């Protein structure tokens, strides 16, 4: 998956497990950037009576690096607080929840948003809002009628033209999980697989699941170096690097029936920049370590990008289909640029998202590129400079984009003499078509991810 359960330790800690990260210039307010960090993978919509919620004991952060050093210059932090109105009932709700202050809603969450400038000892913290309400989970038509309106009421304004939403959303990431994890099979091409089967359409393995989203919409000038709004794509102040991270206290003492005692510094337990980085690039023995380190330490992982395991596997799994990729033994400077430094000027006409030579897994967004009038879910590979890997929008088909890049489709960007295999330009997990959005529903305005599935209407299979 993008980053769902992508490392052994975080797979056991769902509330701190970041699943997807999005960053894009907002089509509904082009002077702003929308940042979305998803947590809690693969929520079954009917997973009650203790429905999903953020961790009260987790610090959630969306970090922005605007000077290319791999350290945060701006951070938005969220902390959550749960409360139970009636401890005498086992029920999540005792009647229809028709408003965010409904007395029928028994267990609810509120949160605090803090903006941090700088990092470490020089960080300056400013609390933007406290006691903001999350919406409930989508239970069903009796418990949460008019859910879309209920969730819309949980979009809160923040000072400075910002707004925030934190709560359950429909999973926006689509991928054929079951096939890919079965020895790298891609159903449309599995007749060509080392262990062949009849070709078939792809199946979205995350369909009918939900996630918990932290969505922020903030002015571009809130994130850029010097608080400017660059208008030229070549302006190096136009590029920001985004990642999300979750932190837990260093120590916890469990006291049985008494409340736990937590103490010590916040320790990073989860991280996500580019989709699939820790999932597919970093090997099993380093995944937990990667999750514990900041992007500024990513030089240690650059070797996995330069010589990705998947690029070696593809020609083996699909014999005779990728002969040019099989012969490509040079370091993958194309992937290094896409994932670790950004694409410098001159590689793609009219575009750059270069943050400097320091390798760091950041979701890099050039904010001077306006929202596309006719977006392509293949992003830059589809000729759409407003899509991944220039940031990431909710509909972008990042699985196919990265599959094609790793298969060699982007190597000519750095070596014009290389001819990609024909298959590199068409490989997909079978969910890439003009109707890919039909697998999932989205919103055209903030917070962009769709209304979560209700447990009544979409019980777990």
């Amino acid at each position, binding site marked *: 998956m993008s980053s769902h359960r992508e490392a052994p330790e975080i797979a056991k800690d769902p509330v701190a497990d970041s699943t997807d990260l999005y960053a894009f210039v907002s089509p509904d307010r082009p002077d702003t950037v929308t940042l979305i960090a998803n947590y809690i993978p693969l929520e079954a919509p009917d997973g009650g009576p203790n429905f999903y919620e953020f961790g009260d004991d987790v610090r959630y952060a969306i970090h922005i690096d605007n000077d290319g050093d791999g350290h945060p210059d701006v951070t938005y932090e969220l902390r959550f607080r749960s409360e139970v109105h009636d401890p005498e009932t086992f029920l999540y709700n005792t009647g229809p929840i028709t408003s965010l202050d409904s007395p029928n809603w028994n267990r609810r969450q509120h949160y605090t948003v803090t903006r941090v400038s700088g990092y470490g000892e020089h960080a300056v913290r400013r609390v933007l809002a406290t006691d903001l309400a999350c919406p409930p989970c989508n239970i069903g038509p009796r418990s949460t009628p008019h859910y879309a309106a209920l969730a819309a009421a949980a979009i809160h304004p923040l000072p400075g033209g910002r707004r925030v939403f934190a709560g359950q959303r429909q999973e926006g990431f689509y991928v054929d999980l079951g096939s890919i994890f079965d020895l790298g099979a891609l159903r449309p091409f599995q007749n060509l697989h080392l262990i062949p089967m009849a070709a078939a359409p792809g199946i979205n393995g995350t369909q009918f699941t939900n996630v918990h989203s932290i969505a922020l919409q903030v002015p571009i000038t809130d994130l850029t170096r010097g608080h400017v709004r660059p208008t030229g794509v070549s302006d190096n102040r136009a590029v920001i690097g985004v990642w999300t991270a979750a932190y837990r206290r260093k120590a916890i003492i469990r006291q049985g029936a008494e409340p736990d*005692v937590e103490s010590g510094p916040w320790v990073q337990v989860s991280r996500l920049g580019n989709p699939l980085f820790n999932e597919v690039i970093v090997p099993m023995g380093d995944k937990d370590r990667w999750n514990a380190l900041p992007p500024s330490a990513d030089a240690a992982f650059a070797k996995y990008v330069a010589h990705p395991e998947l690029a070696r596997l593809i020609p083996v799994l699909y014999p005779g289909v990728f002969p040019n990729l099989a012969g490509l033994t040079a370091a993958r400077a194309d992937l290094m640029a896409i994932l670790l430094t950004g694409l410098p000027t001159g590689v793609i006409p009219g575009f750059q998202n270069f943050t400097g030579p320091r390798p760091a897994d950041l979701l890099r967004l050039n904010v001077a590129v306006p929202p596309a009038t006719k977006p392509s879910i293949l992003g830059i590979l589809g000729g759409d400079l407003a899509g991944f890997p220039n940031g990431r929008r909710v509909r972008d088909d990042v699985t196919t984009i990265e599959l094609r890049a790793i298969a060699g489709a982007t190597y000519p960007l750095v070596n014009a003499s290389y001819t990609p295999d024909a298959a590199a330009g068409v490989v997909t997990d079978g969910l890439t078509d003009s109707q890919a959005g039909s697998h999932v529903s989205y919103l055209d305005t903030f917070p962009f991810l769709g209304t979560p599935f209700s447990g009544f209407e979409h019980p777990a299979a």
Partner: protein
Amino acid sequence: MSQLSRRTFMVQASLAGAAAASGTAAVPLLTGAAPVAVPAPTTFLLHVRDVRTGEVAVLADAEEIVFRDSRLVASLLQALARTGRQ
């Protein structure tokens, strides 16, 4: 680590009077540390990181203070022995 937090911990009687027996690394010693009158946390956690060197970490709120105090560690080991756990 902040000075405020360091002083907060030093005010604890069990630590303030303790003298470190050895230590060559960058981990600070507590020899001669004087108590400072600042509010102490009501609860904090102590982690003996290395019995051999006497390296101890104290966790309180969002802070972590690391120092060497072999005498303190020896006392803790004696307490463990008295309870039959060693």
